[in-house]
């Protein structure tokens, strides 16, 4: 199964409540997947700061003194905000690659969840409620976000196997379904220089989109490509710096419901996930069509 949610705010007044709204949506779908949960939340990009979300199985040891050591290694200011097993490292945008490289030697056990100017990604093994409480997601603010609760079918139940998967700056993806040609696609992407952290099928979908966008496609075109190049069942919800997109495979057996008002666009695997959103009774509610790309941008 798996449950996925997405929320794209049009009304700035709701931005302080993004974390709370997204949390409510995800918790309502807990019985679609109890294995692990994750959330990607996008704040406004300032243009002069980049964020790297990292995770460590030994957070106490790895995050202590990291800011000073990393700043020294890359020669730029660094701040580290610890949040349970995760931490958000802030530095200047031109130093992201240098920081990623330095982390490998400074803290070999640290795993990178994602990086960009806007996105922060939090994911762990456990129920949505547990994961949301652990990272205090309810108090987070932002412009848009996506979330996932996992019932694993294709690979191990681990932190790295949880969604969202991020394979490019400010890009991330959540998936309900399973891909059958992911090994072939992964091999092709590796040949084209993409790097993979897991054996997971969804990571391949995320990397496919990042790869196409790196080759000059926009998100809409990259999503169109999934319909011919990825084989299997999927409903994808994708986040980028400014927007979010939805696409379902042509068979469309993985459920999806969307709602739109003047204040937001929302996605849920089921209508249940949308029932507590403001004004839902008068929202336009519809089921996204198979093999059709939907996309909203700020």
């Amino acid at each position: 199964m798996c449950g996925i949610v997405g929320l794209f705010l049009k009304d700035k007044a709701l931005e302080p409540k993004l974390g709370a709204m997204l949390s409510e949506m995800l918790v309502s779908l807990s019985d679609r997947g109890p294995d692990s949960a994750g959330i990607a939340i996008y704040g406004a990009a300032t243009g002069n700061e980049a964020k790297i979300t990292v995770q460590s199985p030994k957070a106490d040891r790895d995050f202590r003194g990291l800011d000073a050591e990393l700043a020294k290694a890359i020669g730029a200011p660094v701040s580290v905000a610890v949040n349970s097993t995760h931490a958000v490292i802030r530095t200047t945008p031109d130093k992201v690659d240098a920081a990623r490289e330095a982390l490998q030697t400074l803290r070999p056990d640290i795993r990178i969840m994602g990086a960009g100017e806007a996105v922060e990604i939090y994911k762990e093994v456990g129920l949505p409620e547990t994961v949301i409480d652990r990272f205090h997601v309810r108090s987070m603010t932002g412009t848009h976000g996506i979330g996932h609760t996992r019932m694993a079918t294709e690979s191990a139940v681990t932190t790295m196997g949880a969604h969202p998967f991020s394979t490019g700056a400010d890009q991330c993806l959540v998936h309900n379904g399973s891909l059958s040609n992911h090994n072939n696609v992964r091999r092709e992407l590796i040949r084209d220089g993409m790097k993979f952290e897991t054996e997971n099928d969804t990571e391949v979908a995320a990397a496919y989109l990042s790869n196409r966008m790196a080759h000059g496609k926009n998100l809409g075109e990259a999503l169109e490509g999934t319909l011919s190049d990825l084989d299997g069942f999927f409903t994808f919800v994708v986040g980028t710096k400014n927007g979010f997109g939805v696409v379902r495979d042509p068979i469309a057996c993985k459920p999806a419901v969307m709602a739109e008002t003047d204040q937001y666009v929302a996605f849920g695997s089921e209508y249940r996930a949308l029932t507590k959103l403001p004004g839902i009774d008068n929202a336009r509610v519809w089921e996204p069509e198979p093999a059709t790309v939907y996309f909203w941008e700020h």
Partner: protein
Amino acid sequence: MPATPMSKAERDQGHARVFDLSQHSLRELNEALHKLTPGSNETAWEVLNPKGSHSVAVGVDQPVSIDVRGSVGYYCAGMNDGAAITVHGSAGPGVGENMMSGSIVIKGDASQYAGATGRGGLLVIEGNASSRCGISMKGIDIVVHGNIGHMSAFMAQSGNLVVLGDAGDALGDSIYEARLFVRGKVESLGADCIAKEMRPEHIELLQGLLDKAGVTGVKASEFKRYGSARKLYNFNIDNADAY
């Protein structure tokens, strides 16, 4: 869609037993419905705050009326045997699955496989139905005011599917003896499904179904009929191209 309040006429019909799903569990509701016995005085039920709950009013086997105020999730009114169930909202996947008899009316849209494997009764969807509507239907009558999605009536065996709008890809793939009536355009027909002549008995049958479903202002003659070419009943090498 907003839940429509109960009209005065509906309230005057009798003393509806009101079941608020924000106060009581779904299991309590379904248990109460399953305890109904023939001749019970509790013939009118109203369900409030379904909020996308799964399996609302499944397995009801007494001729009672149930009004659900709001949208429901998976499998609403499944296996219905005799009840008249109205959802004043939209329905998730599998509404009316394996209905035996009675009626189900969805005031909004229905998600995938509405009326799947249904054996009898009438399912009316006043909005659109998505993919696989009437898949493997075995005697149910389904009337959709709007459009239906792809692979509808896949392996349909008997019964009638009436669509006032358009049908998606692969309508009636591998169909047996169900009758499909579509007023709008059909994106494509599935394997072994063909357009058929509308004879007087089909006009009469369809008019009866439209009347039963409360459809007005639409003539039976506006529909086209589709059904089985009967080439795939038994394997015949000469028909290999039809698969």
